[in-house]
């Protein structure tokens, strides 16, 4: 395929340089899976050699079944307009990941969020510990084993009346004695 030439080239270069797995997902998307220790060198390589100077995103997926976090680094190159996704997996226990805010300043924000939301430690990460939450003393909330409904029920007052799922408008029309048109009755929740 001709139109995927750039993508294949980049994939090949990185594959030969680091001996990692990878594939071309589609046009302008290249995906690489690497060990966590290789991440910063791959990022630096991509940034310096292939002009992937824009850090698009860092995201974390909780694979609780595997006992792992998947961290994805998404970087973008303004010259080829290509996106490179670098995936790595780290253990959920004592989760720790290399800090890359020396490569991109804005990585600091992502990492602070991940530290707060998933409890992943980034050694050497500066910045206040509280980024989004305040006085949070439970498990990091974005972990899949944190049950938000249970926490909400426990902490916040749950006003009764949610469970009956009544249509408020219907109730109001009933109160005012207004006649409910035929077509509306079709959608009524009371049946």
């Amino acid at each position: 395929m001709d139109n995927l030439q750039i993508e294949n080239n980049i994939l090949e270069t990185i594959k030969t340089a680091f001996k990692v797995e990878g594939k071309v997902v589609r046009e302008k998307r290249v995906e690489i899976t690497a060990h966590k220790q290789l991440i910063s060198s791959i990022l630096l390589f991509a940034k310096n050699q292939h002009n992937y100077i824009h850090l698009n995103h860092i995201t974390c997926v909780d694979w609780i079944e595997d006992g792992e976090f998947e961290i994805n680094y998404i970087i973008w190159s303004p010259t080829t307009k290509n996106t490179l996704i670098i995936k790595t997996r780290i253990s959920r226990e004592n989760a720790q990941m290399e800090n890359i805010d020396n490569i991109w300043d804005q990585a600091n924000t992502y990492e602070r969020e991940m530290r707060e939301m998933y409890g992943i430690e980034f050694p050497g990460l500066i910045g206040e510990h509280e980024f989004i939450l305040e006085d949070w003393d439970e498990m990091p909330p974005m972990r899949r084993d944190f049950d938000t409904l249970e926490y909400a029920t426990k902490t916040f007052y749950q006003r009764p009346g949610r469970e009956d799922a009544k249509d408020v408008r219907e109730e109001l029309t009933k109160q005012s004695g207004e006649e409910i048109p035929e077509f509306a009755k079709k959608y009524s929740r009371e049946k």
Partner: protein
Amino acid sequence: MEKETTLYIGPQHPGITGNMMVKLKVTGDTISSASTHVGYLHRAFEKLIERRNWLQSFTILCRFCVPEPDPMELTYARAVEEIEGREVPERAEYIRTIVMELARIQSFMLWYGGQSGSSGLYLVGQWSVGDRNYILDLFEDLTGGRVYHMYIWPGGVRRDLPEGWKDKALKTMDYLEKRLDEYDKLMFDSTIFQKRAQGVGIIPKDKAIEWGVVGAPLRGTGIKHDVRIDEPYCAYDKLNFIVPTQEGGDVWARALVRRQEIRQSISIIRQALDKMPAGEFYNKIPNPMKWSIPAGSAWVKTESVRGEVGFYVESDGSNKPRRVHVKGAAYTHGVTVLEKILVGQNIADVSFILNSLGVCPPEIER
């Protein structure tokens, strides 16, 4: 005790965009350091989405960024389509384009209000926010909602254009074009506004991409970058439009870029309405409660007013998303970029710069 005075801009402050806080350390009226504090709007959307099924998530998605909910819906829908491999009818692509551009225009109108209001020119804000209602009317006719639409679904759009909508839309565009000239006369022709905006909040061109600047602020530094061109989606590759750029990287350049973009949007809408083919508008999805998506992940980008919006969607094959992670433009603009460019600026310009960057706090903390 610190020597510098601490000044809180927000959360309860007329100059802040949304509910966030910029903590300034000032000496005199010069800012020596700034730090963004967010979390006042954290609703744990990404956590809640994990508990909702693929379609229920739409109610949450559109609330990611309040001034401009449609790009969020579109990006998510496209991500789901990419994982599932679902086709979208051509008519739906055109309708989506129109919705996107309408959303862009209404958001620009709000930006007019913010940018001029933060510099004391309330008249433009009053006019533009008032006129914005006409676009919201169009949305209401089309989707039933003023602000949140939940209109774009995986596989197309929820319903077809209503009768007479096209004429109404064209009429509104004509009206807006006339009004825009009036706003420009007040805002861009005012020497005071020029004095205020020029040379303020400069983003250096050589650092802009590396800092993570996207959207109008990036185009304001002279770099031509627009997702609509780079990775065309919807019907953008079939329509004619230019991506305006300006040199300088200051508030003024960003304002000029936006000023040109809103006119491009109007032209795109006209073209799209003109070229729109007839046919299906919706590639029907199965029963939403049981609808599962094959395992896989997608990273999809869309150009919103503030810059590109990216969705990372991961599916584990069940009927609920595994992970939906949103990266809005404000995530970098509002934190690292803002903290960098505020240093050395005047206190008077904080709100001004915030508005020109289009910082939208719910996008940062979600």
